[in-house]
Protein backbone atom coordinates (compact mmCIF):
# COMPACT_ATOMS: atom_id res chain seq x y z
CA UNK A 1 0.00 0.00 0.00
CA UNK A 2 2.75 2.43 0.92
CA UNK A 3 4.51 1.31 -2.26
CA UNK A 4 1.45 2.35 -4.21
CA UNK A 5 1.25 5.67 -2.41
CA UNK A 6 4.92 6.42 -3.00
CA UNK A 7 4.52 5.63 -6.70
CA UNK A 8 1.51 7.94 -6.86
CA UNK A 9 3.47 10.71 -5.17
CA UNK A 10 6.14 10.37 -7.86
CA UNK A 11 3.47 10.51 -10.58
CA UNK A 12 1.88 13.56 -9.00
CA UNK A 13 5.22 15.29 -8.75
CA UNK A 14 6.04 14.49 -12.40
CA UNK A 15 2.68 15.70 -13.66
CA UNK A 16 3.07 18.92 -11.70
CA UNK A 17 6.53 19.41 -13.21
CA UNK A 18 5.11 18.70 -16.65
CA UNK A 19 2.33 21.20 -16.08
CA UNK A 20 4.74 23.88 -14.86
CA UNK A 21 7.12 23.22 -17.72
CA UNK A 22 4.44 23.21 -20.40
CA UNK A 23 7.10 24.37 -22.83
CA UNK A 24 8.60 20.90 -22.77
CA UNK A 25 5.38 19.11 -23.63
CA UNK A 26 4.68 21.62 -26.38
CA UNK A 27 8.17 21.21 -27.83
CA UNK A 28 7.83 17.45 -27.95
CA UNK A 29 4.37 17.81 -29.53
CA UNK A 30 5.73 20.17 -32.16
CA UNK A 31 8.57 17.77 -32.81
CA UNK A 32 6.01 15.03 -33.42
CA UNK A 33 4.06 17.24 -35.81
CA UNK A 34 7.23 18.15 -37.69
CA UNK A 35 8.16 14.49 -38.15
CA UNK A 36 4.64 13.76 -39.43
CA UNK A 37 5.09 16.54 -41.94
CA UNK A 38 8.52 15.31 -43.01
CA UNK A 39 7.27 11.76 -43.52
CA UNK A 40 4.70 13.02 -46.00
CA UNK A 41 7.52 14.33 -48.16
CA UNK A 42 9.11 10.87 -48.10
CA UNK A 43 6.25 9.33 -50.11
CA UNK A 44 5.49 12.38 -52.18
CA UNK A 45 2.12 13.86 -52.90
CA UNK A 46 0.67 10.47 -53.84
CA UNK A 47 -2.36 10.32 -51.55
CA UNK A 48 -2.93 6.55 -51.87
CA UNK A 49 0.61 5.84 -50.75
CA UNK A 50 0.31 8.33 -47.91
CA UNK A 51 -2.95 6.85 -46.75
CA UNK A 52 -1.41 3.37 -46.73
CA UNK A 53 1.59 4.57 -44.74
CA UNK A 54 -0.35 6.82 -42.34
CA UNK A 55 -0.39 4.29 -39.48
CA UNK A 56 3.34 3.69 -39.76
CA UNK A 57 4.14 7.38 -39.80
CA UNK A 58 1.97 8.06 -36.80
CA UNK A 59 3.67 5.33 -34.75
CA UNK A 60 7.12 6.46 -35.88
CA UNK A 61 6.30 9.99 -34.74
CA UNK A 62 5.35 8.54 -31.35
CA UNK A 63 8.55 6.49 -31.19
CA UNK A 64 10.82 9.40 -32.09
CA UNK A 65 9.08 11.72 -29.64
CA UNK A 66 9.26 9.10 -26.91
CA UNK A 67 13.05 9.24 -26.52
CA UNK A 68 12.83 13.02 -26.17
CA UNK A 69 10.18 12.69 -23.47
CA UNK A 70 12.03 9.90 -21.67
CA UNK A 71 15.40 11.63 -21.52
CA UNK A 72 13.69 14.89 -20.55
CA UNK A 73 11.97 13.15 -17.64
CA UNK A 74 15.36 12.24 -16.20
CA UNK A 75 17.04 15.50 -17.11
CA UNK A 76 14.88 17.30 -14.55
CA UNK A 77 15.90 14.66 -12.02
CA UNK A 78 19.59 15.17 -12.72
CA UNK A 79 19.58 18.97 -12.99
CA UNK A 80 20.08 19.48 -9.26
CA UNK A 81 20.39 15.76 -8.50
CA UNK A 82 16.81 15.70 -7.24
CA UNK A 83 16.73 11.95 -7.88
CA UNK A 84 19.44 11.48 -5.25
CA UNK A 85 17.25 13.44 -2.87
CA UNK A 86 14.49 10.88 -3.54
CA UNK A 87 16.82 7.89 -3.21
CA UNK A 88 18.01 9.15 0.18
CA UNK A 89 14.44 9.04 1.48
CA UNK A 90 13.01 5.71 2.62
CA UNK A 91 11.52 5.20 -0.85
CA UNK A 92 11.31 1.77 -2.38
CA UNK A 93 13.14 1.93 -5.73
CA UNK A 94 10.34 -0.17 -7.21
CA UNK A 95 7.86 2.59 -6.34
CA UNK A 96 10.17 5.06 -8.03
CA UNK A 97 10.32 2.90 -11.17
CA UNK A 98 6.56 2.43 -11.45
CA UNK A 99 5.92 6.09 -10.67
CA UNK A 100 8.28 7.24 -13.40
CA UNK A 101 6.99 4.62 -15.86
CA UNK A 102 3.40 5.64 -15.27
CA UNK A 103 4.12 9.34 -15.68
CA UNK A 104 6.11 8.65 -18.85
CA UNK A 105 3.20 6.59 -20.20
CA UNK A 106 0.79 9.43 -19.42
CA UNK A 107 3.12 11.88 -21.12
CA UNK A 108 3.21 9.79 -24.30
CA UNK A 109 -0.57 9.39 -24.19
CA UNK A 110 -0.88 13.17 -24.23
CA UNK A 111 0.69 13.16 -27.69
CA UNK A 112 -2.25 11.24 -29.16
CA UNK A 113 -4.88 14.02 -29.14
CA UNK A 114 -2.58 16.23 -31.21
CA UNK A 115 -0.67 13.83 -33.44
CA UNK A 116 -3.67 11.71 -34.46
CA UNK A 117 -5.80 14.56 -35.91
CA UNK A 118 -2.74 16.03 -37.61
CA UNK A 119 -1.98 12.68 -39.23
CA UNK A 120 -5.61 12.16 -40.25
CA UNK A 121 -5.68 15.55 -41.94
CA UNK A 122 -2.22 15.46 -43.51
CA UNK A 123 -2.65 11.99 -44.94
CA UNK A 124 -6.40 12.48 -45.64
CA UNK A 125 -7.64 9.43 -43.77
CA UNK A 126 -11.25 9.00 -42.61
CA UNK A 127 -11.91 7.53 -39.20
CA UNK A 128 -15.19 7.08 -37.34
CA UNK A 129 -15.60 7.56 -33.61
CA UNK A 130 -15.35 3.88 -32.79
CA UNK A 131 -12.17 3.58 -34.80
CA UNK A 132 -10.78 6.59 -32.96
CA UNK A 133 -11.50 4.97 -29.59
CA UNK A 134 -9.75 1.75 -30.62
CA UNK A 135 -6.83 3.78 -31.92
CA UNK A 136 -6.49 5.57 -28.59
CA UNK A 137 -6.55 2.23 -26.78
CA UNK A 138 -3.78 0.89 -29.01
CA UNK A 139 -1.83 4.13 -28.53
CA UNK A 140 -2.04 3.67 -24.76
CA UNK A 141 -0.73 0.11 -24.98
CA UNK A 142 2.11 1.26 -27.23
CA UNK A 143 2.93 4.13 -24.86
CA UNK A 144 3.10 1.70 -21.94
CA UNK A 145 5.28 -0.67 -23.96
CA UNK A 146 7.70 2.12 -24.82
CA UNK A 147 7.82 3.51 -21.29
CA UNK A 148 8.41 0.21 -19.49
CA UNK A 149 11.93 -0.46 -20.84
CA UNK A 150 12.41 3.20 -21.76
CA UNK A 151 12.22 4.38 -18.16
CA UNK A 152 14.84 1.85 -17.06
CA UNK A 153 17.21 2.77 -19.87
CA UNK A 154 16.62 6.52 -19.55
CA UNK A 155 17.48 6.26 -15.85
CA UNK A 156 20.65 4.32 -16.63
CA UNK A 157 21.83 6.58 -19.44
CA UNK A 158 20.82 9.85 -17.79
CA UNK A 159 24.24 10.49 -16.29
CA UNK A 160 26.35 9.01 -19.09
CA UNK A 161 28.07 10.91 -21.84
CA UNK A 162 26.33 10.65 -25.21
CA UNK A 163 23.04 9.87 -23.53
CA UNK A 164 21.24 11.27 -26.56
CA UNK A 165 22.72 8.60 -28.80
CA UNK A 166 22.75 5.77 -26.32
CA UNK A 167 19.09 5.82 -25.33
CA UNK A 168 17.68 5.38 -28.88
CA UNK A 169 20.45 2.90 -29.66
CA UNK A 170 19.33 0.73 -26.74
CA UNK A 171 15.63 1.36 -27.00
CA UNK A 172 14.81 1.24 -30.72
CA UNK A 173 15.85 -2.37 -31.46
CA UNK A 174 14.22 -3.46 -28.21
CA UNK A 175 10.82 -1.97 -28.96
CA UNK A 176 10.57 -3.33 -32.52
CA UNK A 177 7.72 -5.63 -31.40
CA UNK A 178 5.86 -2.54 -30.11
CA UNK A 179 6.57 -0.72 -33.34
CA UNK A 180 5.38 -3.63 -35.49
CA UNK A 181 2.32 -4.28 -33.36
CA UNK A 182 1.28 -0.65 -33.26
CA UNK A 183 1.96 -0.01 -36.95
CA UNK A 184 0.07 -3.11 -38.06
CA UNK A 185 -2.92 -2.61 -35.81
CA UNK A 186 -3.26 1.14 -36.35
CA UNK A 187 -2.91 0.69 -40.10
CA UNK A 188 -5.66 -1.93 -39.95
CA UNK A 189 -7.89 0.56 -38.14
CA UNK A 190 -7.20 3.29 -40.67
CA UNK A 191 -7.65 1.09 -43.72
CA UNK A 192 -10.36 -1.23 -42.43
CA UNK A 193 -9.89 -4.59 -40.77
CA UNK A 194 -11.86 -7.28 -42.61
CA UNK A 195 -10.01 -10.16 -40.88
CA UNK A 196 -10.36 -8.57 -37.40
CA UNK A 197 -6.68 -9.03 -36.65
CA UNK A 198 -6.49 -5.94 -34.48
CA UNK A 199 -7.19 -7.83 -31.27
CA UNK A 200 -4.26 -10.17 -31.90
CA UNK A 201 -1.89 -7.22 -32.26
CA UNK A 202 -3.42 -5.54 -29.24
CA UNK A 203 -2.71 -8.68 -27.23
CA UNK A 204 0.89 -8.56 -28.41
CA UNK A 205 1.21 -4.91 -27.36
CA UNK A 206 -0.33 -5.63 -23.98
CA UNK A 207 1.93 -8.65 -23.42
CA UNK A 208 5.02 -6.60 -24.25
CA UNK A 209 4.01 -3.90 -21.80
CA UNK A 210 3.25 -6.42 -19.04
CA UNK A 211 6.42 -8.48 -19.59
CA UNK A 212 8.70 -5.46 -19.66
CA UNK A 213 7.09 -3.55 -16.82
CA UNK A 214 7.47 -6.61 -14.57
CA UNK A 215 11.01 -7.40 -15.72
CA UNK A 216 12.28 -3.83 -15.54
CA UNK A 217 10.60 -3.36 -12.16
CA UNK A 218 12.70 -6.28 -10.92
CA UNK A 219 15.88 -4.94 -12.49
CA UNK A 220 15.54 -1.25 -11.63
CA UNK A 221 16.63 -1.56 -7.97
CA UNK A 222 19.83 -3.24 -9.15
CA UNK A 223 20.44 -0.54 -11.74
CA UNK A 224 20.38 2.22 -9.14
CA UNK A 225 22.21 0.34 -6.39
CA UNK A 226 24.88 3.03 -6.28
CA UNK A 227 22.61 5.90 -7.25
CA UNK A 228 22.28 7.36 -10.70
Amino acid at each position, binding site marked *: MSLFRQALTVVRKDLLLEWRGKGRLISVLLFGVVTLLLFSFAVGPDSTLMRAAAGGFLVLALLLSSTLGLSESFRVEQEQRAIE*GLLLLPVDPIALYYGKTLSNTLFLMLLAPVLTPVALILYSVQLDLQGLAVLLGLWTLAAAGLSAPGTLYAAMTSRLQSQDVLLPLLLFPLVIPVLMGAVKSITLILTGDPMSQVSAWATLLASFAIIYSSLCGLLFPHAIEEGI
Partner: protein
Amino acid sequence: MPSRAANTAIPAVQTTGLGKRFGRQWALAHCDLEVQPGEVLLLAGANGSGKTTLLRLIAGLYKPTQGSMSIYGMDPEQEKLACRRTLTLVGHDNYLYSQLSALEMLQVWTRLRGVELSEEQAIDLLREVDLQDRRDYPVGGFSAGMRKRLTLLRTRLEEPKLVLLDEPFSALDASGQNLIEEWIEGYRSAGKTVVLASHNLPRSSKLCDRAILLQQGQMLWQGTGADLLNHVGATA
Protein backbone atom coordinates in the same frame (compact mmCIF):
# COMPACT_ATOMS: atom_id res chain seq x y z
CA MET B 1 31.20 14.54 25.01
CA PRO B 2 29.48 11.15 24.91
CA SER B 3 28.73 9.87 28.35
CA ARG B 4 29.89 6.54 29.69
CA ALA B 5 26.37 5.20 29.48
CA ALA B 6 26.15 6.05 25.82
CA ASN B 7 29.40 4.19 25.20
CA THR B 8 27.84 0.89 26.09
CA ALA B 9 24.84 1.53 23.85
CA ILE B 10 24.71 0.48 20.21
CA PRO B 11 26.86 2.93 18.26
CA ALA B 12 25.07 5.19 15.80
CA VAL B 13 27.66 4.40 13.17
CA GLN B 14 30.25 1.69 13.29
CA THR B 15 32.65 0.90 10.47
CA THR B 16 35.37 -1.72 10.40
CA GLY B 17 38.09 -1.66 7.78
CA LEU B 18 35.84 0.34 5.50
CA GLY B 19 37.37 1.13 2.11
CA LYS B 20 36.13 2.48 -1.20
CA ARG B 21 38.01 2.32 -4.46
CA PHE B 22 37.07 4.24 -7.60
CA GLY B 23 38.88 2.75 -10.56
CA ARG B 24 42.48 2.56 -9.40
CA GLN B 25 42.11 5.17 -6.70
CA TRP B 26 41.32 4.41 -3.06
CA ALA B 27 39.14 7.30 -1.91
CA LEU B 28 38.86 5.81 1.57
CA ALA B 29 40.87 3.08 3.28
CA HIS B 30 41.15 1.31 6.63
CA CYS B 31 38.38 3.32 8.14
CA ASP B 32 37.53 2.13 11.66
CA LEU B 33 35.05 4.56 13.03
CA GLU B 34 32.64 4.50 15.91
CA VAL B 35 30.18 7.31 16.44
CA GLN B 36 28.17 7.24 19.64
CA PRO B 37 24.52 8.26 19.72
CA GLY B 38 24.25 11.93 20.64
CA GLU B 39 27.73 12.72 19.45
CA VAL B 40 28.61 15.56 17.06
CA LEU B 41 31.54 14.44 14.96
CA LEU B 42 33.51 16.68 12.64
CA LEU B 43 35.34 15.31 9.61
CA ALA B 44 38.12 17.62 8.55
CA GLY B 45 40.68 17.35 5.80
CA ALA B 46 41.78 18.76 2.50
CA ASN B 47 39.82 18.35 -0.72
CA GLY B 48 39.90 14.73 -1.82
CA SER B 49 40.76 13.43 1.64
CA GLY B 50 37.69 11.19 1.68
CA LYS B 51 35.17 13.15 3.75
CA THR B 52 32.41 13.07 1.17
CA THR B 53 33.10 9.43 0.30
CA LEU B 54 32.76 8.47 3.96
CA LEU B 55 29.49 10.37 4.35
CA ARG B 56 28.07 8.85 1.18
CA LEU B 57 29.09 5.37 2.29
CA ILE B 58 27.31 5.87 5.60
CA ALA B 59 24.26 7.21 3.76
CA GLY B 60 24.21 4.08 1.58
CA LEU B 61 24.80 5.94 -1.68
CA TYR B 62 28.00 3.97 -2.26
CA LYS B 63 28.66 0.31 -1.69
CA PRO B 64 31.90 -0.31 0.20
CA THR B 65 34.71 -2.01 -1.71
CA GLN B 66 35.99 -3.40 1.54
CA GLY B 67 34.98 -3.70 5.16
CA SER B 68 31.63 -3.51 6.87
CA MET B 69 29.40 -1.01 8.51
CA SER B 70 26.36 -0.75 10.73
CA ILE B 71 23.89 2.06 11.41
CA TYR B 72 22.34 1.82 14.88
CA GLY B 73 23.10 -1.88 14.75
CA MET B 74 21.46 -2.35 11.35
CA ASP B 75 23.21 -3.71 8.29
CA PRO B 76 22.63 -1.17 5.49
CA GLU B 77 22.67 -3.95 2.88
CA GLN B 78 19.95 -5.95 4.59
CA GLU B 79 17.83 -3.16 6.00
CA LYS B 80 18.21 -0.45 3.44
CA LEU B 81 14.87 1.23 3.97
CA ALA B 82 15.10 1.10 7.75
CA CYS B 83 18.52 2.77 7.53
CA ARG B 84 17.16 5.45 5.22
CA ARG B 85 14.40 6.12 7.73
CA THR B 86 17.03 6.56 10.44
CA LEU B 87 19.38 8.90 8.64
CA THR B 88 19.40 11.90 6.40
CA LEU B 89 22.17 13.40 4.29
CA VAL B 90 22.47 16.87 2.85
CA GLY B 91 25.31 16.76 0.36
CA HIS B 92 26.72 19.21 -2.12
CA ASP B 93 23.62 19.07 -4.31
CA ASN B 94 20.33 20.68 -3.50
CA TYR B 95 18.00 17.91 -4.73
CA LEU B 96 15.50 20.47 -6.02
CA TYR B 97 13.17 20.63 -8.99
CA SER B 98 13.45 24.15 -10.38
CA GLN B 99 9.79 24.32 -11.34
CA LEU B 100 8.32 23.38 -7.97
CA SER B 101 7.70 25.90 -5.23
CA ALA B 102 9.38 25.71 -1.83
CA LEU B 103 6.13 24.46 -0.31
CA GLU B 104 5.70 21.76 -2.96
CA MET B 105 9.28 20.57 -2.50
CA LEU B 106 8.64 20.03 1.21
CA GLN B 107 5.40 18.22 0.44
CA VAL B 108 7.08 15.86 -2.03
CA TRP B 109 9.78 14.97 0.48
CA THR B 110 7.41 14.39 3.38
CA ARG B 111 4.90 12.43 1.32
CA LEU B 112 7.62 10.06 0.22
CA ARG B 113 8.44 9.58 3.89
CA GLY B 114 4.79 8.61 4.32
CA VAL B 115 3.74 11.74 6.19
CA GLU B 116 1.27 14.38 5.12
CA LEU B 117 2.50 17.89 5.89
CA SER B 118 -0.20 20.44 6.58
CA GLU B 119 0.24 23.88 5.09
CA GLU B 120 0.67 25.45 8.54
CA GLN B 121 3.42 22.98 9.42
CA ALA B 122 5.15 23.65 6.14
CA ILE B 123 4.97 27.40 6.65
CA ASP B 124 6.36 27.01 10.16
CA LEU B 125 9.27 25.08 8.74
CA LEU B 126 9.86 27.65 6.03
CA ARG B 127 9.73 30.41 8.63
CA GLU B 128 12.67 28.77 10.38
CA VAL B 129 14.84 29.38 7.34
CA ASP B 130 13.20 32.71 6.55
CA LEU B 131 11.60 31.51 3.34
CA GLN B 132 7.95 31.86 4.39
CA ASP B 133 7.42 34.73 1.94
CA ARG B 134 8.83 32.66 -0.89
CA ARG B 135 6.76 29.55 -0.28
CA ASP B 136 4.86 29.77 -3.57
CA TYR B 137 7.75 30.84 -5.76
CA PRO B 138 9.50 28.27 -7.96
CA VAL B 139 12.83 27.36 -6.39
CA GLY B 140 14.54 27.83 -9.76
CA GLY B 141 14.51 31.56 -8.99
CA PHE B 142 16.14 31.13 -5.56
CA SER B 143 19.68 32.22 -4.80
CA ALA B 144 22.27 29.58 -3.90
CA GLY B 145 21.94 30.38 -0.21
CA MET B 146 18.17 30.15 -0.27
CA ARG B 147 18.31 26.80 -2.02
CA LYS B 148 20.77 25.51 0.54
CA ARG B 149 18.51 26.63 3.40
CA LEU B 150 15.54 24.89 1.83
CA THR B 151 17.47 21.67 1.32
CA LEU B 152 18.81 21.79 4.87
CA LEU B 153 15.18 21.71 6.02
CA ARG B 154 15.28 18.05 5.02
CA THR B 155 17.04 17.42 8.34
CA ARG B 156 13.99 18.84 10.16
CA LEU B 157 11.43 16.62 8.45
CA GLU B 158 10.41 13.41 10.15
CA GLU B 159 13.26 13.89 12.63
CA PRO B 160 15.93 11.36 11.61
CA LYS B 161 18.22 10.12 14.39
CA LEU B 162 21.41 10.44 12.37
CA VAL B 163 22.10 13.67 10.51
CA LEU B 164 24.88 13.70 7.93
CA LEU B 165 25.94 17.10 6.66
CA ASP B 166 28.46 17.69 3.91
CA GLU B 167 29.70 21.30 3.98
CA PRO B 168 26.54 22.66 5.63
CA PHE B 169 27.99 26.17 5.95
CA SER B 170 28.93 26.66 2.34
CA ALA B 171 26.82 29.13 0.35
CA LEU B 172 25.20 30.42 3.57
CA ASP B 173 25.51 33.93 4.96
CA ALA B 174 26.40 34.58 8.60
CA SER B 175 22.80 34.36 9.82
CA GLY B 176 22.30 31.13 7.93
CA GLN B 177 25.46 29.69 9.41
CA ASN B 178 24.34 30.69 12.89
CA LEU B 179 21.04 29.01 12.27
CA ILE B 180 22.68 25.72 11.28
CA GLU B 181 24.86 25.96 14.36
CA GLU B 182 21.75 26.36 16.49
CA TRP B 183 20.16 23.37 14.81
CA ILE B 184 23.19 21.21 15.44
CA GLU B 185 23.22 22.24 19.12
CA GLY B 186 19.54 21.34 19.20
CA TYR B 187 20.18 17.93 17.67
CA ARG B 188 22.85 17.26 20.28
CA SER B 189 20.56 18.09 23.17
CA ALA B 190 17.82 15.98 21.59
CA GLY B 191 20.21 13.02 21.63
CA LYS B 192 20.63 12.87 17.88
CA THR B 193 23.87 12.04 16.17
CA VAL B 194 25.50 14.46 13.76
CA VAL B 195 28.40 13.79 11.42
CA LEU B 196 29.50 16.83 9.49
CA ALA B 197 32.26 17.50 7.03
CA SER B 198 33.42 21.08 6.84
CA HIS B 199 36.22 23.37 5.81
CA ASN B 200 34.91 26.05 8.10
CA LEU B 201 37.08 24.94 11.03
CA PRO B 202 36.69 27.99 13.29
CA ARG B 203 32.94 27.45 13.34
CA SER B 204 32.69 23.69 13.24
CA SER B 205 35.50 22.92 15.69
CA LYS B 206 33.67 24.82 18.42
CA LEU B 207 30.57 22.84 17.66
CA CYS B 208 31.85 19.29 17.66
CA ASP B 209 32.47 16.80 20.45
CA ARG B 210 35.19 15.11 18.49
CA ALA B 211 37.10 15.84 15.31
CA ILE B 212 38.77 13.51 12.87
CA LEU B 213 41.37 14.64 10.37
CA LEU B 214 41.39 12.68 7.15
CA GLN B 215 44.31 12.57 4.76
CA GLN B 216 44.37 10.68 1.48
CA GLY B 217 41.40 8.60 2.53
CA GLN B 218 42.71 7.62 5.93
CA MET B 219 42.03 8.75 9.45
CA LEU B 220 45.21 10.57 10.41
CA TRP B 221 44.38 12.22 13.67
CA GLN B 222 41.56 12.53 16.10
CA GLY B 223 40.87 14.69 19.10
CA THR B 224 38.73 17.51 20.37
CA GLY B 225 37.72 20.44 18.23
CA ALA B 226 40.00 22.81 20.11
CA ASP B 227 42.96 20.46 19.66
CA LEU B 228 42.17 20.26 15.96
CA LEU B 229 42.60 24.01 15.58
CA ASN B 230 45.95 23.82 17.40
CA HIS B 231 47.03 20.82 15.38
CA VAL B 232 46.12 22.34 12.04
CA GLY B 233 47.64 25.66 13.12
CA ALA B 234 50.87 23.92 14.11
CA THR B 235 51.24 21.90 10.93
CA ALA B 236 50.09 24.60 8.52
